[in-house]
């Protein structure tokens, strides 16, 4: 299934993400959980997609797969036309580092490590030099309104601040694909507006964004909304 009805001819638009008959089963036998069932999804370059659905419907499972953090039980996943299953560990690491910015539902900052060092981390693995790394990490932190908090550790930051560090970390490598699992779940309305404004600008700059949310207001901003329910994916609406 493809999306973007009424837009340009599909064959000519390169798909950043191309998911075909993707299934994910956790466990086996009696206790097996079918978190995803034969999901098809394509996302064009520069698209802004919101994923909504009830808790436990399989949204995070899908996003993890898109971020190359987990492998599907069956089905194919092409990222920039490459079948992820064909890549070895190291190549997948490079892919995650260069192409994807991932914002976790649970922040996943490294404990006992300063905000700045957390944001610098992806650049370290990208082989960026120290000084440049520092500058870019500082820039990313100011972008999310955390200038002056560079040296604070995750346990010295509020939930919203931690969320914003996680956003800064995902943006610092200027990835073409931004995957966000409820990035505004822990933010107040002002911070939410800031982060969403940021996403709008990134979208305007041509980045591809896939975002999970519970918040209708957040989903409003996306070009396209897909609904996951009980492991199946349906297109809700297409806008613009």
């Amino acid at each position, binding site marked *: 299934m493809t999306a973007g009805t009424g837009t340009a001819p599909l064959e000519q638009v390169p798909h950043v993400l191309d998911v075909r008959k993707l299934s994910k089963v956790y466990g086996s036998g009696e206790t097996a959980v079918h978190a995803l069932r034969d999901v098809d999804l394509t996302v064009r370059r520069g698209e802004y997609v919101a994923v909504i659905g009830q808790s436990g419907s399989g949204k995070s499972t899908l996003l993890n797969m898109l*971020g190359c953090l987990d492998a599907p039980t069956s089905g194919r996943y092409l990222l920039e036309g490459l079948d992820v299953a064909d890549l070895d560990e190291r190549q997948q690491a490079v892919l995650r580092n260069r192409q994807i910015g991932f914002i976790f539902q649970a922040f996943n900052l*490294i404990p006992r490590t300063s905000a700045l060092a957390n944001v610098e981390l992806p650049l370290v693995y990208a082989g960026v030099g120290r000084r440049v790394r520092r500058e870019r990490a500082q820039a990313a932190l100011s972008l999310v309104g955390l200038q002056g908090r560079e040296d604070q550790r995750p346990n010295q930051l509020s939930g919203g601040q931690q969320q914003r560090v996680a956003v800064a970390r995902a943006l610092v490598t200027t990835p073409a694909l931004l995957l966000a699992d409820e990035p505004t779940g822990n933010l107040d309305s002002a911070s939410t507006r800031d982060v969403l404004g940021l996403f709008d600008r990134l979208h305007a700059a041509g980045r591809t964004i896939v975002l999970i949310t519970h918040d209708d207001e957040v989903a409003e901003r996306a070009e396209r909304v897909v609904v996951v329910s009980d492991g199946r994916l349906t297109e809700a609406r297409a806008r613009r």
Partner: protein
Amino acid sequence: MSVVEIIRFAVRGLIANRLRSLLTMLGIIIGIAAVILLTALGNGASQYIQGQIAGLGANSITVLPRQPPDTAGTDGRPLTQGDVRALADPQGAPDVASVSPVVSLQGTTVEAGRARTDATIIGSTPSYFPGANIQLGTGRVYTEADVTAGRKVILLGRTVADDLFGVGSDPVGQDVLVRGVPFDVIGTLAPAGQGQGLSNPDENVLAPLTAVQGSLTGFGDLTQIVVQARSTEAQAAAESEINSILDRRHGIDVPDNRDYQVLSARQLADVLDDTLGAFTLLLAAIAAISLVVGGIGITNIMLVSVTERTREIGIRKALGAPPSAILGQFLVESIILSVVGGVLGVAVGYAGTLVPLGDFRPVVLPSAVVAAVGVSAAIGIFFGAYPARRAARLRPIEALRRE
């Protein structure tokens, strides 16, 4: 990602987990310090005892009577003054410097006023003092004239003097009763300390041979003959001269039938060397066990460390850390731990050897240092690598789900 970067991560990881890093290192430090200290103890003890044996008088040879093995029931010929005279003959025994006939009586009661104690009385001639390497403390040694005249003069071992006249006293000029027979105290022996030789010289009293024979043992057989060789080098030659003279005098055809026995410090040194070798080996085994225990400690903490940080590994992987970077970080962490722990362990072990233990000092064996550090580094690296490798292979999401 550069090596410098990996090392920086490792150092940061260690500092972020200070307590755990210290505890891990403690295991290594104790293991290595134990190896160094125990082997140094064994080595020091061995050197000390060898020094003591040298102090026994390397030139000293003792001849003792013994029951010949195949003549059960019939006693061999005793050692006599005739034997002494034959051994003292420079013609037959050119390598012998002096020969001292000895009679001794163990458990002899010695009294001074109300005080009494048990001692071993040894009757001999003045050459016994250099021959058995006995040092004078206070007073004088008895003379040939004392021996000829059978004068009842006596020298007390330090313990005996302490028991009878008080600790540190100088009883020269006093009288003692040895089995009721009065003797004049003319001197004391220098304290030998515990365990010099086979009996404790501090518990002996020494008197002229004739006085002991005349008043206590009677003019019968000798308890032993102490022979002094001309030099340490001449000792073996002196021993064979003693054998040939006594074999002739006692009518011995084969060495197995000898009714006497020749003992020397040289032989004692050989026996003790073997014993000490076993002792050092025992200490080394204990040390090795402590090293293994230390190694298990490292392994354990490395496993815990990696398991505890599986989530962190997951985050790093999600951000694009290649498996080699994860593996490198933990490997460098364990290398730093083992190397720093190793250096500190050597320092602690070495410091431990500086503590004096009684009379002897532990002597550090360089080979033990090398072995201890090498083994602990190997253990640290090997067992640090194993869990790190396992963690580096996890899928990011699996690692992230671990709490």
